[in-house]
């Protein structure tokens, strides 16, 4: 099957939180179909028994001791915040 034909732009755009315009959808649909068509070639490769490569080099147990380092002063932490109040980030009302 050709997976690229399955690309549901509205579904994916919603997952990605991207409000796409009509033109963008039209344009992307074609371009992404080309790209997904191109990557179909990977189906030709026999990958039976091959380990997936998640990291460039397989190293384990990279950690730090539980020793506190200073963080950012609140005014610096919120220095780039679009909207803030009383040292809190303000967002439109979240309805649960």
């Amino acid at each position, binding site marked *: 099957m050709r997976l690229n034909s399955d690309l549901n732009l509205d579904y994916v755009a919603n997952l990605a939180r991207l409000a796409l315009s009509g033109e963008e959808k039209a344009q992307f649909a074609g371009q992404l179909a080309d790209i997904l068509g191109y990557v179909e070639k990977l189906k030709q490769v026999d990958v039976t028994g091959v380990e997936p490569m998640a990291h460039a080099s397989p190293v384990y147990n990279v950690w*730090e*001791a*539980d020793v506190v380092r200073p963080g950012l002063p*609140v005014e610096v*932490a919120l220095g780039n915040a679009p909207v803030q109040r009383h*040292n*809190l980030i303000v967002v439109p009302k*979240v309805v649960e």
Partner: protein
Amino acid sequence: MNYEAVIGLEVHVQLKTASKIFTRVAAGYGEPENTLTDPVVLALPGALPVMNKVALDLVIKAGLMLECAIAPVCKWDRKNYFYPDSPKNYQITQYDQPLCLGGAVEIELPGPARNVMGEHKKIPLTRIHLEEDVGKLTHGVHDSLVDFNRAGTPLMEIVSEPALHSADEAFAFLTALRLALVQGGISDCDMEKGQLRCDANISIRPAGQTQLGTKVELKNLNSISFVRDGIAHEIRRQHAVVTAGGTIVQETRQYEGEAGTSAALRSKEMAHDYRYFPDPDLMPVKVDEAWLATIRATVPERMFDRQRRYLEEFQLPYTLTSVLVPQLALGAFFEEAAALGGKPQAVANWIANDLQRELAVAGVELAGSKVQPRHIAGLVALVESGVISSNMAKEVFVEMFATGEMPEAIVARQGLAQSTDTGELEQWVSEAIAGNAKAAAEFKAGNEKALNAIKGAVMKASQGKANPQQVDQIARRQLA
């Protein structure tokens, strides 16, 4: 038709670490808003996560305490979803390779009476994994406010099998789990502070049916009694729906503890598609025997194993074990005192009753108690060897609690030791007989009770130091 409830719990527990799980800024509760952040917590461009070794240690310890299999290798995955309290808009968690697999929590159900032990059960666990907490959202009238202090706090998720069947079992499960985690120093489990949070998956099915009914996820069970009440409420609700011929819809409901009601949450926009994939910023974790051994060495005895030991080895009554067992320090105090000799029953009594009471009254922690195990052991020995009466022991206890002086010293200093000097006793008795001629006559006439008046007089004269058994013997001989 009668129905059976099936309950599975998902418990989130904040780990007791100094710094956060993937960066070293302090973790904590009650600090001023947004003062526990750094580039990693705020997910600034370019920030990268680095594991906290102690967070891993604590989850392995929990796993060992809860009889889990510790995975030889586990990895980190990203759970992708957008929410204002989630700075990266993905949560670093463990999807298909959790750190702990299986396991069980032993619970004790309420007995028929307070002094009678209830049924014990083992509730199987599915898994325990490690992940990061999110920030805190406060909903105002016009907008919502975000504080990221909590974001990145190490969070342990414990998932039970759907093996609980009543609100009481769920309550007992959480109680036992919380005690274990507190005793293990893994978390303070303060639900007020959100250090332990519980969601429940609840369904009902006709008794005997094997396949599960439609489950409802109950959220916001943010106090241990809300867990019991909320689950009981949800079981009643489902029962009512079904018996009224309705059907249960799969949904997430929020329990309102104060009102004792629940309402369906407006399900978050679309079907969840979290697009889990291995986090390329973090290396996997390999747990070898050496590491396990170091953690094993720190694992305390399981609570109910200790309870069994106290019941069998020390022959303590259930009521005493139920005081000593839940408090690790108190149990240790008891075992230390008992090891110094003296009837474990008596030792346990002094600790579970008198000591506990005096500490409470004085508002002193056990750690700060002047009375140490050797004091209790000494006191019990004095009573058992008949040096002092149990009534006097009470006075001695109060004295040593206040001063920390050893009981032997107090007895000696205040000359409280019972007199067994027969000369002195013969003297007191003959004086008492002389002073109570009437009672003496009645006793000789066969009135046993009359002897008490004479014994009482002896005790009075001796200020209670006379040994009652000896007084009895001597009085009978003199009156014979």
